[in-house]
């Protein structure tokens, strides 16, 4: 049972981080369907950083450098979306889809090449970080506490404060609701949208590195992140684009995702003899049902997905 709680919290934190990322992008007026690809890139940056860490690096350094690498990779990758969506008025759905495919393909190519250079016989896309990963974990009486949980909580509080209590956040949201009006009072819509997309890259990258360190100590990058970026979008919609609701929504989804990891350890669930694939499907099914009930009266930012054109009124 403790394991279930632990994994629920871990997965909820990942979903929350990524969903908050989506939330920033959409509040600025850009739909970020490329979160999945951003997660993969962030995961790759962080994982490679960990695997290259020399032995004996202090835990604090490992945490700082890994998180930094993931953030930088996520943000750099999100530039692809920002350029296309903000300056070239590209279809954000196509761009997002391309970014998801590109993320997995690029990460696979990069990791494989690095593996092959280090060892000519190694053609796998696996990165291992068994020892380094321990830096993130503190064992408290059987409960594996991860520093990522702290990072996620800080991100949650920071998101709330930034969005609702700062001038920047309120301006950002104005750009997603009515960019023309925002522009007319002197807000630079393009800058705000850049900020929104870059922040989503930051949070998406963080979510990515957390995802590949949860419950495993190596990652095969050909697999990508199994639709997690889209689950996060479902969390964001269910959370009505509000950080506090997103946190609660993430807990629900995290619970169902955690079930597939630990159901065999829970006596009454194991006794039901439900095939494991059913548990694997659960988060996706739940998200479909939840979306069906919450999308009707959408609370989405009004101008999301519409390229901003200064000439239009």
């Amino acid at each position, binding site marked *: 049972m403790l394991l279930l709680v632990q994994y629920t919290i871990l997965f909820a934190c990942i979903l929350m981080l990524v969903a908050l990322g989506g939330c920033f992008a959409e509040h600025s007026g850009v739909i970020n369907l490329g979160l999945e690809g951003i997660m993969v890139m962030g995961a790759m940056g962080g994982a490679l950083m960990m695997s290259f860490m020399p032995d004996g690096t202090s835990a604090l350094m490992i945490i700082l450098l890994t998180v930094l690498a993931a953030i930088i990779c996520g943000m750099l990758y999100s530039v692809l979306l920002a350029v296309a969506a903000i300056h070239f008025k590209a279809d954000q759905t196509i761009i997002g*889809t391309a970014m998801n495919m590109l993320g997995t393909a690029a990460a696979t190519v990069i990791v494989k090449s690095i593996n092959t250079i280090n060892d000519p016989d190694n053609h796998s896309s696996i990165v291992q970080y068994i020892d380094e990963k321990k830096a993130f974990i503190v064992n408290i009486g059987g409960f594996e506490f991860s520093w990522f949980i702290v990072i996620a909580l800080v991100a949650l509080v920071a998101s709330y404060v930034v969005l609702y209590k700062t001038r920047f956040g309120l301006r950002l949201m104005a750009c997603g609701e009515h960019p023309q009006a925002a522009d007319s009072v002197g807000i630079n819509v393009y800058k705000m949208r850049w900020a929104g997309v870059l922040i989503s890259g930051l949070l998406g990258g963080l979510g990515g590195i957390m995802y590949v360190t949860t419950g495993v100590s190596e990652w095969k990058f050909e697999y990508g992140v199994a639709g997690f970026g889209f689950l996060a979008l479902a969390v964001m919609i269910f959370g009505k684009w509000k950080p506090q609701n997103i946190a609660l929504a993430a807990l629900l989804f995290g619970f169902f995702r955690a079930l597939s990891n630990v159901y065999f350890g829970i006596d009454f669930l194991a006794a039901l003899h439900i095939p494991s694939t059913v548990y694997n499907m659960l988060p996706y099914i739940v998200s*479909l049902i939840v979306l069906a009930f919450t999308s009707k009266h959408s609370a989405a930012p009004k101008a999301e997905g519409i390229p901003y054109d200064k000439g239009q009124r």
Partner: protein
Amino acid sequence: MKKILRNSVVQALLTSLICILLGMFVGYLVLLAIEPSGAGEAIMAVAKNFFGYSRPQIQMKHMGTTLVKTAPLIMCSLSVLFSYKVGLFNIGAAGQYVMGACASLYAAIVLGWSWIPCMILAAVVAAIWGAISGFLKAYFNVNEVISGIMLNWIGLYITNMILSGAKDPSSAYTYTLAAKGKAAILPSLGLEAVFSNNKYVGIAIPLAIIFAIVVWVVMEKTKFGYELRATGSNKNAAKYCGMAEKRNIIISLAISGALAGLAASFLYLTDIEQWQVTISSVPAMGFNGIAAAFLGGLSPIGTIFASFFIQHITDGGSHVDLSIYCSQISELIAAIIIYLCGFVGFLKIAMNTALDKADEKKGGKK
């Protein structure tokens, strides 16, 4: 000359070519970054694919294999294209494809059906899968991209579960149709002999081309197609004109689903590949369909050529020197091409503005 440049077909061709060249160029840069000495050779291997073989018979045989996989890709991109014309982004094509694979292989191996009923079942099952997305979109306003992705994963797990009953316990792959399900193997129509006895080449290839033409006719020449396109360009206007926009959304995604389902039966009923029940990622075919649809300028006929190109470089990826590079380089190129396709609208506007300006200058001189 300028008249030619203003022609929308020429513009579509031109922009697609630019996307391809830029995509290949970025791929080349990546190869250069990995290992400069063999990069030129590797990108040529990707571009050449079966032309890399010296003997013409072997070239034909491998061209046959590329064509066998092009047929399902054409169907997948038709699936994406069809719903895109109705204003829906059918990323769920990948999942509908998976369900089609599930239905056709189950019918072929476990039920022992012959190929036509197998194909029909695949189309029906995949159509239902697509219609779920459409229903959720029409009545619950659920974004079809997100529901599509969810259904992709649900479909993958269901397929793995169901097809576990169609394989030998010691293997991860389903039985070959040659072993169990001979009746379901697609007829070759004598095409086998044309491609140096490549036994997988058959009816699927002409069928895919026929479907492309049918989709074009339905979209451009029928009232039904007109209604669908009207719903796509302005949902509210279509509704105002008395078109059933909810019904149209569901029907178009169901048809898209059927096309994707047929795609799967076109591949798996040739027996060229078996389903791996331990697979943990959705097959790339459906996603490549998105690439082919946009690269083909969203025209059913353009799709045929774009699909061949995408499949050509995908197969070409396996010809690079695998001791230095990896075959995923072609996936990377395909992804970059889709990314660039996002800029096509901008390119066309820029092209037209440049032409307008040139015209104005000329007019001023007169």
